[in-house]
């Protein structure tokens, strides 16, 4: 290209471009990259053996197990209800729809501490069902069921939020075509709807999962912090940190940070996949589309 090129009407002067890029990258470096590096640095501050030793603590292992168990347990609920909510909202018109959408967002807006407190008030010793529960010897608060319930509350919106715009954009023609061709409801769902939303669904599940594994405030209120019993990994990090066991705290934190990185990678891959599919859909020629169906 020839030398003194004209500055485009839609571009900033070069010095400004560089300055803004510099400011942006510096901001992200100090607020994102540096903390991420620090987690692993602190975890390995005492060397590899200390790090592995810290991870091998039975209480740490139990916390890892509990965290994964809760995350896996809530996943099917989120998928089922998320898909159901998105199906009703995206494919049908009914009164109070926008109110329903707002209510689905509610768990995002409520402070986790308030969420924990709410379930304490219902199931706790002085709570509404407290006397009944203790009479029947059922433990919900300060036990696993309470932790699962608050996690369900906290992660409820993710799948539906992801699917509603996607399914609205896809419209209902494909499903209507399936029904007009004689498909049953289940047939239509498994063969037409699910293949169309699978990446969006996976995306929502990944986000919900990250939140489920990382939740602190709400779980903290209802867990009771019983070591080796109701301690999830984030709660375990807190305990170790408050005991001035920095290596132990950061070792556990590094496991969570690794899970966060896995989440980011999975999320990025799914995003690429979604983008690729919309792009190929746009470029497939009608003739090719016909041929591929044959």
């Amino acid at each position, binding site marked *: 290209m020839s030398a003194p090129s004209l500055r485009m009407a839609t571009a900033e002067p070069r010095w400004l471009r560089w300055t803004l890029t510099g400011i942006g990258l510096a901001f992200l470096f100090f607020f994102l990259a540096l903390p991420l590096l620090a987690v692993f640095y602190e975890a390995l501050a005492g060397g590899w053996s200390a790090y592995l030793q810290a991870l091998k603590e039975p209480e740490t292992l139990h916390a890892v197990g509990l965290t994964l168990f809760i995350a896996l347990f809530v996943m099917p609920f989120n998928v089922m209800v998320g898909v159901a909510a998105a199906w009703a909202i995206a494919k049908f018109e009914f009164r109070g729809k926008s109110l329903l959408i707002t209510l689905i967002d509610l768990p995002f807006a409520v402070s986790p501490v308030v969420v924990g407190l709410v379930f304490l008030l219902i199931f706790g010793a002085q709570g509404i069902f407290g006397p009944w529960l203790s009479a029947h010897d059922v433990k919900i608060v300060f036990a696993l069921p309470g932790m699962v319930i608050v996690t369900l509350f906290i992660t409820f919106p993710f799948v539906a939020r992801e699917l509603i715009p996607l399914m609205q954009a896809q419209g209902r023609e494909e499903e209507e075509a399936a029904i007009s061709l004689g498909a049953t409801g289940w047939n239509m769902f498994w063969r037409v709807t699910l293949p169309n939303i699978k990446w969006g669904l996976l995306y929502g599940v990944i986000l919900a999962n990250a939140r489920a594994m990382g939740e602190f405030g709400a779980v903290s209120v209802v867990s009771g912090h019983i070591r080796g019993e109701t301690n999830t990994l984030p709660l375990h*990090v807190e305990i170790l940190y408050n005991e001035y066991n920095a290596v132990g705290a950061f070792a556990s934190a590094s496991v969570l940070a690794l899970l966060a990185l896995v989440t980011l990678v999975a999320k990025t891959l799914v995003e690429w996949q979604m983008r690729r599919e919309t792009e190929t859909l746009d470029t497939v020629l009608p003739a090719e589309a016909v041929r591929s169906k044959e």
Partner: protein
Amino acid sequence: MNKRVLPGFGLSLGVTLVYLSLLILLPLSGLVFKSSSLSLTQFWDIASGERALASYRVTFGASLLAALINALFGLIVAWMLVRYPFPGKRLVDSLVDLPFALPTAVAGITLATLYAGNGWIGRHLEPLGLKVAFTPLGIVVALTFISLPFVVRTLQPVIEDIEPEIEEAAASLGASRLHTFTRVLFPAIFPALLTGFTLAFSRAIGEYGSVIFIAGNMPLISEITPLLIISKLEQYDVVGATALACVMLAISFLLLLGVNAIQWWAANRHQGDHQGPERASQ
């Protein structure tokens, strides 16, 4: 209503409403029900106690500051990610979501360590007389971290959708780049910026996990409202905790409505009921 072609409306809406009611609506109304055992004066006394007022100041002040920081830098980051090429852009783009993925407790202990007097960053700030960790400033840092993606992620698609013709039109009419930005581009992205800001603010107000590690948690100085609720619970003051939780819940509701109102306004602000007969079809 007409017979619907697609199946499953009753089932899917039924499942959604039952689940939503049992898991979310009924428990939340339980909170309001519980607090109704208080008289209005009692409620007011708790909600406007000295420590409570101080905690609101800290929570809202720090959240506002964090949301403002994110609005400014989030705008720059979103602009940079959409408009400017630089190596490693996709990596940086993915990294923006880190605060969504990283558990808040991890963020809390890490930021506390970084900004402590002997930490990588604190070490350089303290000689300047700037104490961050264990002060209200630390709260701002933690809240900035956890609410960072909101502004960027709300702005990015909006900036991507700006038609270059709009900017070319402004330039051909003699507008400088600054004029084009302030008069043409900024008004176009302002609703998204406001939405992102409100989302960040709303998230910051409820945050607990990351803040408690870096705040120092001094009553009246660096104690946030969620922490005050917890400490009331730990002193078996369930009633006091409930009253404060009600205040928080009401504010959450208001902010949620605010976000919805902004989005409605953004969608309708320049749409009259009169639609031309032959709207341009792209």
